[in-house]
């Protein structure tokens, strides 16, 4: 029996170890090592912190970094504000039958590629776009307005692409909530505001945490939406990484940027988990 167990363990363990070490652990170590490499004046390869120093001395790099982090936090908060009423409505207000239908309807757009969704927004918002055409023919405006390629359209696009990852954990945590908690508070004379802030939100806290972590990470690592909806000076940090790798072919600098982004996202996720006293395993599954 003991031998059988260990052979089973071996069969299951090998592919998992190969996957995690060859494709996850070693590449991340290589990323770190690569970011510490450089050339001296003679063009010989050396170990150096120059790539990181460069990041802190060039204003544009750390400005983009801080800007990306701030906007990713704003996107997370906005996504929560936009989707929370929807999750509450679907789980608590609307009739049970309609609730199933609305949940399905809610999920369908997110099976479609992010690129298609961003493209849809582009043909809606741009100068020759559908919204401009409608507003012109209604006489609301005299000449077309460019609504694409600015920070607001970029943030809206990011919120749009991230909504699913907030609304699903919110719905599943609110579904588990006993309606009688709200009824009791209502009978005792609590106002709607009190019920939301003292009962509903604390109850949904695990869902809020896991949704926020995923949304933050996706916004931070997004390349498509800032690139296509944010225009020329959208200054998203992933674009800096892309430029270093593909345009300037400076892989060492790009690796340093990549490692900084990895550190930032790990740090924020760690802080989020500590603040809400939850574990990664529970949040993700």
């Amino acid at each position: 029996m003991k031998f059988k167990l260990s052979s089973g363990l071996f069969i299951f363990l090998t592919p998992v170890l190969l996957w995690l070490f060859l494709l996850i652990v070693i590449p991340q170590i290589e990323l770190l090592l690569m970011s510490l490499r450089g050339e001296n004046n003679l063009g010989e390869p050396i170990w150096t912190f120059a790539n990181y120093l460069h990041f802190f001395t060039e204003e544009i790099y750390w400005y983009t970094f801080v800007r990306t982090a701030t906007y990713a936090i704003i996107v997370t908060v906005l996504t929560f504000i936009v989707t929370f009423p929807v999750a509450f409505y679907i789980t608590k207000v609307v009739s049970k039958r309609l609730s199933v239908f609305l949940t399905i309807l809610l999920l369908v757009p997110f099976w479609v590629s992010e690129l298609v969704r961003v493209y849809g927004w582009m043909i809606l918002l741009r100068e020759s776009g559908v919204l401009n055409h409608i507003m012109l023919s209604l006489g609301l405006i005299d000449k077309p307005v460019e609504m694409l390629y600015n920070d607001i359209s970029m943030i809206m696009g990011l919120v749009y692409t991230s909504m699913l990852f907030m609304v699903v954990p919110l719905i599943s945590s609110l579904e588990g909530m006993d309606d009688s908690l709200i009824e009791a508070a209502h009978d005792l004379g609590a106002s709607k505001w009190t019920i939301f802030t003292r009962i509903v939100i604390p109850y949904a806290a695990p869902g809020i945490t896991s949704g926020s972590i995923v949304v933050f990470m996706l916004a931070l690592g997004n390349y498509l939406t800032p690139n296509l909806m944010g225009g020329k000076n959208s200054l998203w940090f992933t674009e800096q990484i892309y430029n270093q790798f593909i345009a300037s072919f400076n892989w060492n600098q790009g690796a340093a940027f990549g490692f900084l982004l990895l550190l930032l996202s790990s740090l924020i996720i760690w802080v989020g988990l500590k603040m809400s006293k939850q574990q990664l395993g529970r949040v993700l599954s």
Partner: protein
Amino acid sequence: MIRSLPQDRGYSFGFKFYIICYFIFLFAPLLVTCVLAFNDSNFPSLPWKGFSLDWFFANTGERVGIFHDSSNLSSIWVSAQTAFIVSVLSLIVGTMGAFLFEQQDFPGKQGLYFLALTPLVIPGVILGISLLLTANALGLFIEESTGLDIPLLRPSFWLVVFGQFSFISTFVLLVVSARLRKFDHCLEEAALNLGASRFDVICSITIPFLRPALIGGGAVAFLMSFENFNTTLFLVGSDTTLPVNLYLQVRDGSSPVINAVSLLLIVSTSLLAMINLLINRDKKVE
């Protein structure tokens, strides 16, 4: 407030209005994209110039519909191949992972489980560049020591497959683990007592029990791979996948052909999602 309590009219009306606005916001870009695929115009914009199927079937000098557009067609084929291989690979490894973490005990299990979840919190761009760097370093090393040039280690089809596989396996692992947790071990023990081999038990008891999770996980893996952009962007070689190919077209200009491709994508993914949902509902009825 909620369905069991009396609601004042302002509250319920306001809430309904908000939900309607939300769903309009949700569907507007998709609807507009689909509708403009049929507009008889050279640009994906209004005014409406009449219904036309040119952007699907035409093959004239001015208009080349999607079914004659070799670049987009071949990228769809590349994406389909990639997605198929990625979903098979991640189903195998993800399921093995689920068995490993749910049924086996070994030192360092917690740590390894944590490691298996990390691909979900590493941004896709980072997964892409780190794999690119590693493959490149390995390729250089092999070339310097043996003189062999291995095309696999340069941005290529297989590098994309590995990049996507590296994080999609985790999703499959989570889906299958959730199902495996509900598995009643008495069934396995009964079969073993009745003389079935370990292999028989897995084939005729455990796998059938896991089937809904395997189908669901496979569908999720296929879709995630088919539409992946962030990781693929850095690993893609000469044969571009559909999202990367579309991105290059959208960035450099726009033509209603993109709308036609999008429409096909929207219809096929919705169908796949619906089928997946129906299968899952059947499971609940049982």
